[in-house]
């Protein structure tokens, strides 16, 4: 699940712009807590949206650890540079639409929701 959440974070960045153009010069610590994995996922995506909107951070990758409903993550990135990062759209919020966090029979995880932009 940790890796699925980290990959979803990267997917969110790809909605905003081109994360592969980001230089990992800053480290941002993010924590969230929720009773169920689906709410935790929505909170995680919304926490990232907040970092982009309020602190102008854009991330290349994430390290995520989830234990007993507490998510602790570090985002590796830098301040947004709209031209170099080829930004297209700012997300408004994670929604509950198509929200799903589950483990598949092959032990891999799916973590998804629709993001309003």
């Amino acid at each position, binding site marked *: 699940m940790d890796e699925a959440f980290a990959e979803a974070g990267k997917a969110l960045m790809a*909605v*905003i*712009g081109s994360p592969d153009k980001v230089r990992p010069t800053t480290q941002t610590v993010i924590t969230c807590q929720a009773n169920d994995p689906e*709410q935790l996922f*929505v909170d995680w995506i*919304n926490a990232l*949206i*907040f970092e*982009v*909107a*309020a602190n*102008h951070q*854009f991330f290349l990758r994430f390290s995520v650890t989830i234990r007993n409903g507490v998510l602790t993550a570090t985002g590796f990135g830098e301040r*947004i540079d*709209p*031209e170099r990062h*080829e*930004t*297209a*759209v*700012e997300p*408004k*919020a*994670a*929604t*509950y*639409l198509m*929200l799903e966090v589950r483990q598949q029979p092959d032990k891999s995880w799916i973590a998804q929701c*629709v993001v*309003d*932009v």
Partner: protein
Amino acid sequence: MNRKLVKQKSEYRWIVERAGAMKVDGVIFASEALIAGMDDKVAEQVRNVAALPGIVGASYAMPDAHWGYGFCIGGVGAFDPEAGGIISAGGVGFDIACGVRTLHTGMKVGDIEGRREQLADTLFRKIPAGVGSTGRLKLRPAQLDEVLANGAPWAVEHGYGLPEDLRFIESNGRVPGANPAKVSDLAKQRQAEEMGTLGSGNHYLEIQQVVEIYDPKTAMIFGIEEGDLKISIHCGSRGLGHQIGTDYLKSMGSCAKQMGIELPERELACAPLNSDVGQSYLGAMRSGINCALANRQILTHLVREAFDEFQSSASIRLLFDVSHNTCQEETHSIDKKPRRLFVHRKGATRAWGPGHPGLPAEYAGVGQPVLIGGTMGTASYILVGTAESEHMGLSSSCHGAGRNMSRTAATKQWNGKDITRQLAGCGILIRTRSIRGVAEEAPGAYKDVSEVVEVSHKQGLARKVAKLVPLICIKG
């Protein structure tokens, strides 16, 4: 849409018949073509809203309706607090008070001939737009609370605009009852540097040319002539509104569960109007409306600065400013009795008819301007509210074109540079910090706004006054 989900009652009126938990019928305004293009989910979401506590009249969907979160985009629903009625964050949406402001310039197209590029560049330099853009205002929390409580009048008092601007904004630029204390610190932090910014996505500032007049008498009263240059600004409450939506969707989800309100979709999260959570959201959402109205007022000031720098004879005045993502307290005649209702319009425009006491005196004889945004390659429309819209759909009309394709699909089909070049060939200058954003917003990714407007007109939800086409588009 599967035709079995609706019954056609007249050419442009379709019913989703009351069944199961529905407390009222659903009503969809659409042509055959628009109904055919609508997702089945629109009917499902109309049904879901019809089942919410305290709904009055019907659950409506405007001609531009499409699948949304909880309520469909284009959805209208009114709730009576004295009958257990609810308020829903999903019924307003994340972009609280997103709306359109249209400005007169006092200029004709010929006045910028040969200088269009210069005007486009000047506006692009002046208007903060796109991801990560910040405004010149940096507000401390206490200052932001003043904005949230006072809306556009705050902006005017601080030098952003003219006192006479306020009369041509819904609610004179300030909705009463805002409670900034009910807006989270996170929301305020998101907004600290975003006052006076356009945003991104489908938000824009356009220089437009009036190309057709449908109703000369109303056009004259609105101050519209063929060949006029107008300016339209489409944006909302920025990060503050988005965060209010996020915060209350979560708290309302818990509240609905505690109150035993069954939610077929989590995005329908709601709370009784007469509850702590309901009242808190109302205070926060009204703060969001005031934030949006102040934001469009500051942008208007920046437009005036741009035209001063451009050295034109422009006289920038407001035609009107109307939001299309709100919940407003209104009195409506239901079964010939006046009732105080809270009307959610999510991607729908209030459209008051002639004589409504809330209209500026100049427009009282004809009705409210209804501002419908198009795409950067098509047209926008100015309509006017009608008397009959009151009983048809609680004085509501459409709000825009609505997407018919995802952003991913659009970027696969179009290239932003090609779109920009093609539009330049048609006389439309695009200025943007995001070429990918242009591809995502390609005109072909949207429905035909003309068909949507035509249905609103023929059904009488609002009547066509004028058509405008873009000459310059500053894309968010």
